[in-house]
């Protein structure tokens, strides 16, 4: 009898798998090396390591993070682009923003499509959606001919103002399907029927660029899983914190980018918040090279319509907003030309990794500093699987930081750590306090390999009273994936102000979107009773550029009061002001429906521990805390033995194979019924 739900997430270094029995709540985990460039071997290795038989698997939820890597490493399909004639500059032009203020030698990374492979088709739709210039089909055929001769694998099409009327894009697609049947074709209307020409084009290009990659990958995965013996359902996680069927993933491969951190936020951080009684959560994930921060308010993660994979590569389908900060365990500490200490954004990544890994890294990283400060246990990194070499960390820090200043290595390590914390707290503040959230009402849920090392200090810096470290912080995305519902976000442009609004049109559009969502869910095998449809609108003042995401209650909309009230409330919170009533009209920019197919979610079991605090105590060790003025004796606990509901005070370090939690003086920790480590600051 199949009983396990398996979550799988592929990272740059490790592939994580998590299996949970829906009935008994029994859990299994496996961490294996990732196997680029195919990656699917790693998945099968992991499945074998889990020690479950294929017939025991009831569902397989997969994070196809391969797409993000394909963009970063430029290994996507050779892609051609068709734009409205005369607008060939709009894709390579981007939004033009630069990265450094005064560094004129820096140039943005090259675009995914070269100007020479960008073609124009004579056509024009007006901003109101009328055809101004009919499509010149010969232009499309010419582009198709060039694409064939140039060996393109994918084609993206995006016309000006096409979000108001897709007729030309649809016809273009027909022609291309005839002319280039083997190429992966994406038109903007099917990916992102929204205003903003560059962002829409970028998302469309991304989808085309990833199409063939995703197709090969999924094909491979299905084969390998079948060989392993599994013929059941495979669902793929996406950027809005849900899953989709393989069919949908092949239509919208761009949706799989960014899915890994999002699975952790929605499936894990949100759930842990619920379990520990926090409706408001700051999710803070930190791995080797990056941190991702997301805000969950009243149980709902913040949604964004713009997320950047790279500088100038925006991806604008609805996503859970996670803000990337270039500072992780592998972030490098360095001195700039003015001999000031910087940490990151350059990172050592997995290979060669921090100096203390002994893989040939010579740069001083965050992880090296943590080791020198006694916070990391050289013999218990990854549960002892990866021995750390303190002498190498010492050497790197001495040469790169300590010697130039004439400091001791400890002083230098403390400096690296404090600079890193200062950076992180700024980034966190920008996502919370600066945007009108009062962090005293939030819990910081920290997971990933390295964030529990920083989390409590960071919470202290920002006055966040509670920090929670979930039971398996090193498997967040895999664990999170198992709890994700099927989810599809469908939007349609409306662009009507209050006075222009036709309620019939509004209701019909919403009904239409709901019907579409329902059809997809039905195709994915969801039962009617498990479906829910959340209607929403993107709202703004007419002459404002930014929109606000506002939920619309179910049923027919007959007046705008609820919608405008929610909009004004959001605006007031974030902006601190709203315009006088009647001054400018409110505009409904887009309508949307989030179609959810609820699945049975695995729950964490309540745990029972026989051990006492004393038995959980591994040793006492000298650990460096800035607030204690240097090294001080700290209790080192084994997380797996910490008894439930027994409080213990910092300074302390809690060790477990997938991470290390550091508790500074003045903090108190306790393991709750579900195995969460809950730390409060006095």
């Amino acid at each position, binding site marked *: 009898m199949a009983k396990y739900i398996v979550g799988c997430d592929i990272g740059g270094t490790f592939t994580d798998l998590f299996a949970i029995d829906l009935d008994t709540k029994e859990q299994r985990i496996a961490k294996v090396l990732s196997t680029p460039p195919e990656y699917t071997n790693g998945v099968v290795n992991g499945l074998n390591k889990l020690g479950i038989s294929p017939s025991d698997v009831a569902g397989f939820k997969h994070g196809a993070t391969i797409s993000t890597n394909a963009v970063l490493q430029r290994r996507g399909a050779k892609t051609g682009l068709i734009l409205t004639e*005369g607008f060939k*500059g709009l894709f390579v032009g981007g939004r033009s*923003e630069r990265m*450094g203020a005064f*560094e004129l030698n820096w140039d943005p990374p090259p675009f995914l499509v070269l100007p020479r492979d960008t073609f124009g088709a004579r056509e024009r739709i007006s901003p109101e959606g009328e055809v101004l210039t009919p499509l010149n089909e010969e232009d499309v055929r010419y582009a198709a001919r060039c694409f064939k*001769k140039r060996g393109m694998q994918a084609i993206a099409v995006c016309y000006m*103002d096409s979000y108001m009327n897709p007729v030309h894009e649809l016809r273009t697609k027909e022609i291309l399907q005839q002319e280039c049947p083997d190429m992966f074709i994406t038109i903007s209307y099917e990916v992102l029927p929204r205003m903003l020409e560059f962002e829409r084009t970028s998302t469309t290009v991304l989808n085309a660029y990833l199409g063939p990659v995703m197709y090969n990958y999924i094909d491979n995965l299905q084969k390998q899983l079948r060989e392993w013996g599994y013929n059941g359902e495979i669902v793929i996680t996406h950027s809005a914190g849900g899953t989709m069927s393989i069919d949908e993933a092949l239509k919208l491969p761009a949706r799989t980018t960014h899915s890994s951190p999002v699975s952790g936020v929605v499936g894990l951080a949100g759930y842990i918040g619920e379990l520990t009684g926090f409706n408001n959560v700051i999710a803070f994930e930190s791995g080797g090279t990056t941190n991702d921060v997301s805000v969950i308010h009243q149980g709902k993660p913040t949604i964004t319509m713009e997320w950047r994979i790279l500088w100038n590569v925006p991806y604008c389908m609805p996503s859970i907003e996670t803000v990337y900060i270039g500072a992780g365990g592998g972030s490098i500490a360095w001195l700039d030309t003015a001999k000031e200490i910087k940490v990151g954004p350059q990172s050592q990544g997995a290979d060669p990794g921090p100096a203390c890994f002994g893989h040939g890294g010579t740069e001083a990283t965050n992880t090296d500093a943590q080791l020198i400060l006694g916070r990391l246990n050289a013999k218990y990194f990854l549960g002892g699987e990866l021995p750390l070499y303190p002498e190498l960390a010492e050497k790197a820090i001495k040469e790169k930081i300590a010697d130039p200043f004439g400091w001791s290595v400890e002083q230098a390590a403390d400096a690296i750590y*404090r600079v890193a914390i200062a950076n992180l707290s700024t980034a966190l503040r920008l996502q919370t306090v600066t945007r009108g959230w009062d962090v005293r009402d939030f819990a910081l849920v920290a997971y990933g390999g390295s964030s529990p090392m920083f989390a409590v200090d960071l919470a202290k810096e920002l006055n966040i009273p509670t920090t929670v470290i979930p039971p398996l912080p090193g498997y967040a995305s895999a664990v999170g994936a198992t709890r994700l519902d099927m989810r599809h976000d469908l939007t349609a442009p409306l662009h009507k102000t209050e006075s222009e609004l036709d309620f019939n049109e509004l209701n019909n559009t919403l009904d239409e979107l709901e019907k579409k969502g329902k059809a997809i869910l039905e195709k994915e095998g969801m039962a009617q009773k498990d479906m829910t449809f959340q209607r929403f609108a993107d709202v703004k003042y007419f002459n404002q*550029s930014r929109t606000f995401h506002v939920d619309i209650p179910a049923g027919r909309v007959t007046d705008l009061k609820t919608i405008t009230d929610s909009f004004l409330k959001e605006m007031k919170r974030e902006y601190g002001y709203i*315009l006088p009533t009647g001054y400018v009209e409110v505009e409904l920019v887009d309508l949307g429906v989030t179609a959810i197919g609820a699945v049975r979610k695995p729950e964490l079991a309540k745990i029972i521990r026989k051990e006492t605090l004393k038995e959980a105590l591994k040793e006492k060790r000298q650990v460096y805390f800035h607030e204690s003025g240097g090294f001080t004796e700290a209790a080192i606990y084994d997380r797996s033995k910490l008894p439930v509901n027994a409080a213990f005070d910092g300074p302390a370090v809690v060790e477990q194979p997938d991470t290390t939690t550091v508790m500074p003086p003045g903090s108190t920790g306790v393991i709750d019924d579900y195995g969460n480590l809950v730390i409060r600051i006095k």
Partner: protein
Amino acid sequence: MRKELDVITYEVIKNSLVSCCHEGSTMLEKIAFHPVIGMGRDRTTSLVDREGNLICHGHTDPGAHYPTTELGTKEVLKDIPVSSMKPGDGYITNDSLRMGTHVNEIRLTWPIFYKGEVRCFALVIVHWPDVGGPMPGTFNPRAKSSYAEGIRIPPIKIIENNEIIEPLKNLISLNVRTPVVRWCDFSAQIHVAHMMNDRMIELFDKYGVETIEAAKEQMWDYSEATVRSMVSEWPDGEYYFEDFGDEDAASKEHLPIAVRCTMTVKGDNLTFDWSASDPQPVGSWGASHPTTTAGNFVGLMYCFPGLFPLNHGIIRAVNIITKPGTCMNVLEPAGTTGYCSGAMDKAEAVTCGCCAQPLSQVLPHRIYPGSVALNNLTLGGVNPKSGRDFVDYIFRVGGGMARSFKDGQDFFIFRFAPFTYTVPMELEERWFPIIYEGYEARPDTMGHGKFRGGCGVRTVVRMRGEGEVTIHGDREKFGPHGLGGGTNGGAAHLKLNVGTPQERNLGISATGEPLGDGDRIFFESGGGGAYGDRLERDPQAVVEDVMDRYCTLECARDIYGVSIKIVDEEALDYQIDWEETKKLRAELAKKPLPEGTGPQEVHPLGKKIKAIREMSVEEALSDCVLVRPPGW
């Protein structure tokens, strides 16, 4: 005796101060109402000490603003002594002749009190899209005085005990267009000042006033020492460079305006003397003294990218001299709205030209030709759809400057405001009675050289109703300078109905030109200056440019001497005829490109500035310093 801080405490405090400004700027762009602030990022937040000295500013602020915050605040303090300030008071001004930049910049000076005393100021600057005057949007290229621009507000208390002083607000409201939304922007300014106030109190609580003060001094000492030590490596001497504005548009003669600077390097002392520049123009083109320092510092900081952000230590390490009554130090009652495309752009370019001379000997990868300038285009009229007045403010990217080791960037945002986003065309089409008909690189408009400048960009807009167009621009007659024998960048233009019998060049200072329904405006930005001899350009690079439509076949042949045969355009099969290329190049070597300061001519001063050696891209980029906000 000042307290010496350990480097870590210093670094953490320094980060916190910079973060405070970065947070302020980020908040401002999110919550200000007008898109010119949110997308154009035309706003600045700085911390200034109680003497008016600049502590730091936000990372993504435009370089036109923050160098003026020090001199500007000192002017405010002349009128309003610190001793008269009370907690909860805030001061407004936009007097650009004293503060710098132009009247659109509304400056909120917010004293931060700690334990009963003013410890520093938060200075929050926002570009108000309109501050009155005859022209919607306030930009007025034909203004002969500041009276023909917008309302001028001297430093004056606008907030008392955390309440806006109503009569004053009413006075300002009566003098600007769309006042309701302007006060929304101002409310955002206040909001940000409060946030910075709170953040500074936290820092004073945590570290104590003395420590914060010490960190500030240490920061300045450090920056000053670094500038001086780097300058001391520059060969001593006097270095001269010049540039020109197209015309004094409001005068009878429409003569060009010369900007001249002599930079003197002596040991670790660096002086810029702008005194020999032309007299103050009649029209709104010139810069007040603080504005000239802005252009000067922006140009100088390209040599020290690692020292970003600017602070008082850098400011005091450099001596900047301007002569009152010249275009670089305009006096009452000069207009200022044209400062950005006019005098400041030239100050920045001339500074680059001066610094490139010694730098070509010591840091050859840090010499820069001139780059595309900001041209401010406004379309105004009555929106037939709503029956209301509208003003659309449009700026466009253009050609970036070549580097001494690689090409310039196409679609490059003007250098002094690198964090500006271009406004989406589809959004403008929703708001205003216009429809875009084109957005493409203009082939062959780059500065020609071994490393070419970026191409200019053509934007085509069709009117969907009647209206008028005004442009505050420059660089139609004088291109951004080339270096080392590379040509100046191509010209910028504003044209009407190109390709029809009604075609007309409106000129780069067109003011209130009437537009009919269906008229097409061709807004063409200029190209960037090049580096090196065009005949040394790698023929393969020329072919790539032809494929990407940055360069035509004719230009490849006539300028670069590269003969290209298109075997199959559809298959992208382009071949170089090497024999023919060799012949062409030998012929062209006998016919050097014309010398001059015009578009695509070889700059007579610039051609003498050559990198002492050519670095590889790898070597040059190994010294690429991207100073980003903490946690970015």
